[in-house]
C-alpha cells in the first residue's frame, strides 16, 4: 500500500538534501523509491510549503527506570498543575518535569519525536526500566547500561584482569540487560561515595579498589570499541556541577587517547572559577577541544528557567547538591553494589547569577561547536529542563534576536560574564535536522532511521514553516511512525507501541561461569534471574525488539 507525500520541502542531511522539493513514497512502513508508473498510490498527502524531516531522536532523556519513578512519586506538586485527561484514544496521566510514562510518550510524538533513549539504565534495575519503556507508547526506545561503579567491574580492574575479560563482561552486560550502549556516570565515584568518599577527581583513587576514574574510562572506552558497539562510551564525567570542572573535562577528553567518546550534558561540566563569584563559563575552551578532537561527540544538557527535578545516577554529586533542593526534599539511594541514584528537585532562576550563567554556557557551547554532527540537542530531561522545552531551545538556537531578548532579561552580571551577545551564529533548519535526527541516528548505529532515503523506516515529521520556530517545532502537522499517521496537527490520531532497540555483541560467554559464582557468593539475585530474556519485553511488555548490528 503506497503512500505519497508530495510537494514538501525536504531536509535530509544524510543525503545532503537541504530544503529541496522532493516527493516521498512510503510502502509497508518503509520509505521507498518512486514506484513504477502503474502502481496504485492509496493515499497522497499534499505537503505544499511544508517542511519534511525524519522523525526526531532524543539521544539522552530520562524516561524510564527507578530514579524517575522516585521523582514521580516524590513530586505530586509537579503533577497537580499538569493533569492530562483521557481521550477516546489516549490514557490519562500527568506531570511537567516527571510525567507519567504514557503522557511522556504522547508528548514526544506530538512534538515530532519517534525515538527516545534512556541513558542511565542500572543493570540491577534494568527490568523495571524496560517495563517503564514498554509503557511509554508512540516512540521507539532503548537504553544504555550503566557500568563503572559496579563491584564486579571494579574488582576486575583492581586485580588487573586483561582487557579481553573486561570486554567480555561489558558485552555480557549489554546482552543481559537488553541495552543499546554503555554509559559511565562519575566513573567509580558512585562506589566511592559508599565508602564515604565525597569527591573523586579524574586521577584520585577509589579507596577500596585503588583504581581511578581515568583507569575506568579507558577500560570501558576500549571495551566499547572492541565489542563494536556503535554508540561511543556515553560519559557523565567526574565533578558534575563543580566550579572548575572545565579542566577535568578537558583532561577527560585527553584521557581516552583518541578513542571515540560521547560526553553527555557537557554544560554541567564546563565551569571555570574566574570572576568575583568564582564561577565562570568554560564554553570556549570546551568547544575548542570538541572542535579539535573528531573522536568526541557531546550533548549539551541545556538548562532552561523554571521548576524541574534532577534525577541522576551520580549519588555522590546529587548528595553534594541536595543543599540546593527546591522544594526541600531529596532522595539518595545506594543500589546493589552496582550503582546508585539521587533525585533532587530544583528551580533554575533567571535572576540568579549561577543559573543564568548556566543557561548562557549551554547556549555558548551549542553555538561555538562547529560541527552539528557532533553536538546533540538535549536538556538532559528532566535535569536541565523537561523535554517539552525543546521547541523553545530550538528557537534560541535559530533566532539570534530572540536569544538576545532573553539574554537582556537574565541576571545582569551573568549576561555580562557571557560572550553570548557577541555570537552571531544562527542554526539553520538543516543544522537542526542534523542534530536532532541524522547525527543521533548515526551515533547510535540506527542505519535506517534519522533519514528519508529509500529503505529507511518511515518515521517522518512534517511541519509548517512558521517564522516562530518554537511554534513550528511545538506542533507538527503530521507525524508518521513506521509509515502510519500517528499525529495530525500536534494531536495523537493513532496510538502505537514503538519497538525496543538492542544489540547482541559477540563475546566469550566463558565470563558467565565466574559471574554465576560471583552472584551466588555475594548477590541477592541469581544470575539467571538477573538476565532479561526477550519474552519479558515482547510478551510481558507488549513490544518488539529490534537488534541493531554491531560494527
Amino acid at each position: 500500500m503506497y503512500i505519497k507525500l508530495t510537494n514538501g520541502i525536504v531536509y535530509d542531511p544524510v543525503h545532503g538534501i537541504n530544503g529541496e522539493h522532493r516527493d516521498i513514497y512510503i510502502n509497508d512502513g518503509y520509505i521507498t523509491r518512486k514506484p513504477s508508473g502503474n502502481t496504485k498510490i492509496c493515499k497522497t498527502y499534499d505537503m505544499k510549503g511544508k517542511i519534511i524531516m525524519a522523525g526526531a531522536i532524543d539521544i539522552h532523556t530520562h524516561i524510564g527506570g527507578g530514579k524517575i519513578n522516585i521523582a514521580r512519586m516524590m513530586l505530586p506538586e509537579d503533577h497537580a498543575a499538569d493533569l492530562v485527561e483521557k481521550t477516546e484514544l489516549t490514557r490519562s496521566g500527568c506531570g511537567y518535569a516527571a510525567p507519567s510514562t504514557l503522557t511522556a510518550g504522547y508528548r514526544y510524538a506530538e512534538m515530532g519525536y519517534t525515538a527516545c533513549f534512556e541513558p542511565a539504565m542500572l543493570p540491577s534495575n534494568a527490568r523495571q526500566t524496560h517495563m517503564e519503556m514498554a509503557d511509554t507508547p508512540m516512540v521507539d526506545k532503548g537504553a544504555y547500561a550503566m557500568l563503572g561503579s559496579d563491584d564486579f567491574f571494579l574488582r576486575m580492574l583492581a586485580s588487573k584482569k586483561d582487557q579481553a575479560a573486561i570486554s567480555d563482561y561489558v558485552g555480557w552486560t549489554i546482552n543481559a540487560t537488553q541495552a543499546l550502549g554503555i554509559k559511565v556516570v562519575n566513573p567509580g565515584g558512585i562506589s566511592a561515595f559508599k565508602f564515604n568518599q565525597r569527591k573523586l577527581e579524574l586521577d584520585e583513587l577509589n579507596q577500596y579498589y585503588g583504581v581511578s576514574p581515568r583507569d575506568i574510562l579507558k577500560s570501558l572506552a576500549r571495551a566499547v570499541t572492541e565489542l563494536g558497539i556503535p554508540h561511543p562510551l556515553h560519559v557523565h564525567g567526574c565533578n558534575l556541577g563543580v566550579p572548575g570542572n572545565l579542566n577535568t573535562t578537558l583532561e577527560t577528553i585527553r584521557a581516552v587517547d583518541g578513542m571515540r567518546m560521547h560526553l553527555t550534558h557537557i554544560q554541567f561540566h564546563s565551569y571555570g572559577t574566574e570572576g568575583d563569584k568564582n564561577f565562570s563559563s568554560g564554553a570556549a575552551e570546551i568547544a575548542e577541544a570538541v572542535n579539535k578532537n573528531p573522536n568526541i561527540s557531546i550533548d549539551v544538557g541545556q538548562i532552561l528557567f523554571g521548576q524541574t527535578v534532577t534525577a541522576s545516577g551520580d549519588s555522590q554529586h546529587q548528595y553534594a547538591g541536595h543543599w540546593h533542593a527546591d522544594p526541600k526534599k531529596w532522595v539518595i539511594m545506594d543500589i546493589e553494589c552496582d550503582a546508585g541514584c539521587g533525585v533532587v528537585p530544583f528551580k533554575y532562576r533567571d535572576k540568579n547569577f549561577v543559573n543564568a550563567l548556566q543557561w548562557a554556557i549551554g547556549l555558548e557551547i551549542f553555538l561555538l561547536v562547529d560541527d552539528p554532527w557532533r553536538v546533540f540537542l538535549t536538556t538532559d530531561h528532566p535535569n536541565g529542563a523537561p523535554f517539552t522545552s525543546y521547541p523553545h531551545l530550538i528557537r534560541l538556537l535559530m533566532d539570534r534576536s530572540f536569544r538576545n531578548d532573553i539574554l537582556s532579561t537574565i541576571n545582569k552580571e551573568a549576561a555580562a560574564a557571557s560572550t553570548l551577545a557577541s555570537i552571531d551564529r544562527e542554526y539553520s533548519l538543516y543544522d537542526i535536522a542534523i542534530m536532532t535526527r541524522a547525527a543521533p541516528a548515526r551515533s547510535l548505529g540506527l542505519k535506517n532511521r534519522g533519514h528519508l532515503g529509500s529503505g529507511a523506516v518511515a518515521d517522518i515529521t512534517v511541519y509548517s514553516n512558521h517564522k516562530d520556530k518554537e511554534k513550528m517545532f511545538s506542533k507538527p502537522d503530521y507525524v508518521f511512525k513506521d509509515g502510519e499517521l500517528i499525529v495530525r496537527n500536534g494531536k495523537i490520531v493513532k496510538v502505537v507501541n514503538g519497538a525496543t532497540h538492542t544489540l547482541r555483541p559477540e563475546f566469550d560467554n566463558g565470563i558467565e561461569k565466574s559471574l554465576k559464582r560471583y552472584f551466588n557468593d555475594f548477590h541477592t539475585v541469581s544470575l539467571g534471574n538477573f538476565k532479561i530474556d526477550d519474552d519479558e519485553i515482547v510478551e510481558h511488555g507488549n513490544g518488539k525488539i529490534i537488534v541493531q548490528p554491531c560494527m
Partner: protein
Amino acid sequence: MAKTSNISSVINKDVACPFCGILCDDLVIQNQDETLKILENGCPKAVASFEAKQAVSSPKIKGKDVPLSDAIAAMSDILKKSHNPLFSGLGTDVGGMRQVMHLADKTGAIVDHMHGNALIRNSLVLQDLGWITTTMTEIRNRADLIIFAGTDARNYPRFFERTIWNKQSMFKLKNEQRQIVYIGDQLDSKAGINPNGKRPTSLNCKTEQIGEVISGLHALVTGATLDVKEIAGIKIKTLQALAEQMKAAKYGVIVWSPAELDIPHAELTIQNFCEIVKYLTRFTRFAGFSLGGNDGATSANSVCAWQSGYPLRVNFNKGYPDYDAQRYSTHNVLKNKEVDSLVWISSFSSNVNSPRASIPTIVLGTPDTKLNFKPDVFIPVSTPGVDHSGQLIRADSVVSLPLKKLRQSPYANVSSILKQVIERM
C-alpha cells in the same frame, strides 16, 4: 516451564518466591504430576504457599457456578453501570497491575492496595522531606550496624539468612563485625543472634514510642545533652552508647516495616528514621531500608506511579488522575459511600479478603478464597509465579524478578481477565 508431556517430574531452579516482599529467588521446586514440592530454600511461608494443593473452584454469579465468559460479561456489565468503581486488594503482578490501571482509567475508578495503609506511610515521608535508602545486596555486603526499628523481620523469614548472616561478603566484612540492634515492643531477637553466639542489643519500648526514642538518639548524635534520665523507659546511658555506635558505623542501616508501625501518624516515626539517617550521612554512611511489599504491593505502587504519575491512592473519576493518599483509602471510600462498585483482586493468597460492602462486588481471588458473603461475581484466578509467568518488584523498589510458571492451572490470570473486560467497555 521445562515440562514436556512424557516427563512426569520436572525440577525448576532459581525460582523467585512471590509470597513476601523480599522475593527470594533461589528456590528449587519440583513438579511431580502437577504437585509442587520445594526441594531447597523454602521458608515455612513458601512451603505453605507453593505446596498447598490447588483448590477446586469455579466462576460464580451470586454464588452459582457459571462459565468464565459469563462471569466476565457480568463483571463488565457491573462496571459499565458503575459511575465510580473501587479497585482494591490489587494482589497481582506487574502485568495484572498494568491492566488494573488501564481499566481504572477507562471506568473512572479509585485504586488502592490491601496494604495501602502501609504504602502511604512511606509515600508521605518521601513527599515531605525524602530519604536516603539502600537495597538488599548493599546491606548484605556492607552494613556493619543494622537497627531494626519496630520490626523483627519475622514476616520476611529469610531476611537474615539472605542479607545479614553470610558466608562471605564483597568487602570482607565478617559476621562478627556486624552489630544488630532492635528498638521496639517485645521484638523477637533470635534471628539477630550472630552465628558466633553474640546476642543483639534490644531496646524495649512501645511502638508508639519508637519515634521518641529515635528523636532522642538524633539529639545525642548531634552532640546535644538531654536533661532526662530515660526516654520511653530506656536509660539515656544506653541511648548514648547506641548514638556512639551509630556515629562509629561505616555503613549503618535502619530497617523498618511500615505495615508493622500500625499507629496513628506512623509517617512521623518513619520520618524520624529518615532524618537521623540524613544527619549521620553528613559524616559517615547510613541508609534506610523499608521491609514490605507483600501481595505485590511494591509492584502495584510502582506501576501506579509510572502509569498515572502518582503512587497509590489515585481516583480516575474526573478523567485524570487525582491523588489523595488518605482520602481514597478502601476503608474511607466505602464508609463514605464514594464508590458504587467494588472489584477486589487477590491472586497470591486469601489471607486478606474482600470487605463486605453494600454495593455490587466482584472478587478475583485465589480458588481457595472463602468469603462471609456472596459477591455478585467471583472469578478464581491463577497465582503469578506458580501458575503463570510474570514479574514482581522487590521491597526496595529497585530490583524486580521474573516469575516462573511451575504447574498447569485451570484458572485464568488477572491480566487476561481484565483485558477481556477492557475490550467489553
